[in-house]
């Protein structure tokens, strides 16, 4: 069990050791986002703007234009106050800035709604030139971070606060733009991203008892979306469930539905936050209250199959 934010922090430090052009920025949340691992080793290449996210994004853009590879980090909720800066200084300029949004979803827990990012995927995937990565575990986050550094152009990496089970192994490859199948079953395809991947696997286990065999797909890249894999599964299986710790609007489910609607329409049941803000509570309690867990995913599969 390890948090995806830890995988990010370790990868960023590793990148810093390999490439002196890698720099990191924070808006006073480097301890929480784990950018502090890099800061401790490379204090001269770490820049905090204090509690000023718009300034952080503009500064990152300038560093990138001057040839550096900047990683700008904060809670995903606070990235939203700099969306114009991300849109123009980063995406419109196509600067080589990598953005980490941490503490996503209800699993942030007791801090409550203002810290629980549930709208970030929707916004980031609408931006031209932006790549959107939602890795499922710490291992995969490590690889996604390294892939982000190698990619030319803006990248968003979504991480979480709480430890999550290891799903991928050190030897599993990570490729931007590829959906990987963790389980294969002919009855229903469950597409999950980030913290909902383990619940999707648990749901698939539970469904076996009801004679339902589920494919579980790890959507670790939301943009560019893997149209080929989605369309193939639509043709082969024809019934989908999507799951995300994110609002129902414009997130993972929508990204999948955009593909199927255009290429191979199939029924889809979407497990997501139903257009509500979260609240304080323990992660498990919140996931239960708002219906984003293995139980809901299994139930959604049965509905989809009707």
């Amino acid at each position, binding site marked *: 069990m390890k948090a995806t934010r830890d995988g990010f922090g370790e990868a960023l430090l590793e990148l810093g050791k390999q490439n002196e052009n890698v720099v990191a920025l924070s808006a006073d949340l480097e301890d929480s986002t784990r950018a502090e691992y890099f800061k401790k080793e490379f204090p001269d290449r770490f820049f905090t703007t204090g509690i000023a996210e718009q300034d952080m994004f503009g500064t990152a853009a300038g560093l990138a234009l001057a040839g550096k590879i*900047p990683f700008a980090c904060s809670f995903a909720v606070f990235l939203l106050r700099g969306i114009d800066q991300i*849109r*123009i*200084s980063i995406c419109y300029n196509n600067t080589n800035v990598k953005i980490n949004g941490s503490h996503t979803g209800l699993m942030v827990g007791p801090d409550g709604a203002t810290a629980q990012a549930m709208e970030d995927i929707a916004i980031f995937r609408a931006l031209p030139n932006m790549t959107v990565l939602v890795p499922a575990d710490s291992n995969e986050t490590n690889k996604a971070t390294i892939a982000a550094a190698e990619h030319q152009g803006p990248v968003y990496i979504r991480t979480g606060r709480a430890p999550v089970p290891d799903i991928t192994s050190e030897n599993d490859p990570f490729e931007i733009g590829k959906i990987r199948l963790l389980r294969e079953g002919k009855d229903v395809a469950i597409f999950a991203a980030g913290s909902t991947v383990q619940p999707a696997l648990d749901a698939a286990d539970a469904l076996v008892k009801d004679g339902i065999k589920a494919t579980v797909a790890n959507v670790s890249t939301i943009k560019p979306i893997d149209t080929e894999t989605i369309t193939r599964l639509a043709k082969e299986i024809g019934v989908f469930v999507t799951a995300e710790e994110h609002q129902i609007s414009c997130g993972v489910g929508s990204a999948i539905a955009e593909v199927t609607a255009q290429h191979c329409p199939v029924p889809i049941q979407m497990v997501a936050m139903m257009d509500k803000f979260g609240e304080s509570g323990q992660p498990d309690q919140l996931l239960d209250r708002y219906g984003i867990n293995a139980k809901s995913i299994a139930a959604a599969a049965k509905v989809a199959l009707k």
Partner: protein
Amino acid sequence: MAQRLNIEELKDTARSLRREILKVIAKAGSGHPGGSLSSVEIILTLYGTKLRFDPKQPESPDRDVFIISKGHGTLTAYAVLAEFGFFPKEELQHFRELDCRLQGHAHRSVPGIEASTGSLGQGLSIANGFALAAKLDGSDRRTYCLLGDGESQEGQVWEAAMTAAHRNLNNVCAIVDANGVQQNGPVSTIKDLEPLADKWQSFGWNALDIDGHDVEALIKAYDAAEKETSKPTVIIARTKKGKGISFMEGNHKWHGKAPKPDELEAALAELK
């Protein structure tokens, strides 16, 4: 950092740039004459006497960097860049046309334009990024950033100001084209910025307050900024929106409107 133009040449070129700016905006049928005319001396003097650049190598690593944060004033920057040979002058005639890289707001595809801007308040942070990179690289290259006074109502400008002062970015020089007028009226009635020099000073900057149309005052100010070793410098350049045309000066209606043919003719007559 060679003096490419002397005082007389700067004044003559300023006049011809104003004629060009008005003709191009009139031809395009849209643009921002008021804020483009107010910054002519600011940008021309920078390129003509101070900035380190080679138009044949617009991306050379040891160049000074100029960012036009008030991106709607980009035509002045385009015209100065063309004047110094970054691209052919006749390209200016296609400003704002489909498939011309001279976009309505500053765009990176134009040789010499360092960052695409147009949403106000973002350029100074970008300038700080360039400056931080220069310090990391041990380079003495400098970064200049042109802001509007209306633009300075954006909070991000002050976030960036704090960053530059906190990090002793003496290699940053901001210039405020303080023409006193924004889109819907005078800055002083919409959200007054005065005392502006005091504000920058209290934010830890070396603040200079000069006549922004006085070429000699600009040269002295750019020199003073370069000599400052511990803090960034801001040059508050007091200018007139629509400078040079009697019916445009100080008039917010000329913020974003193109002159019609008869208005262009009247304007050019004043710029002989």
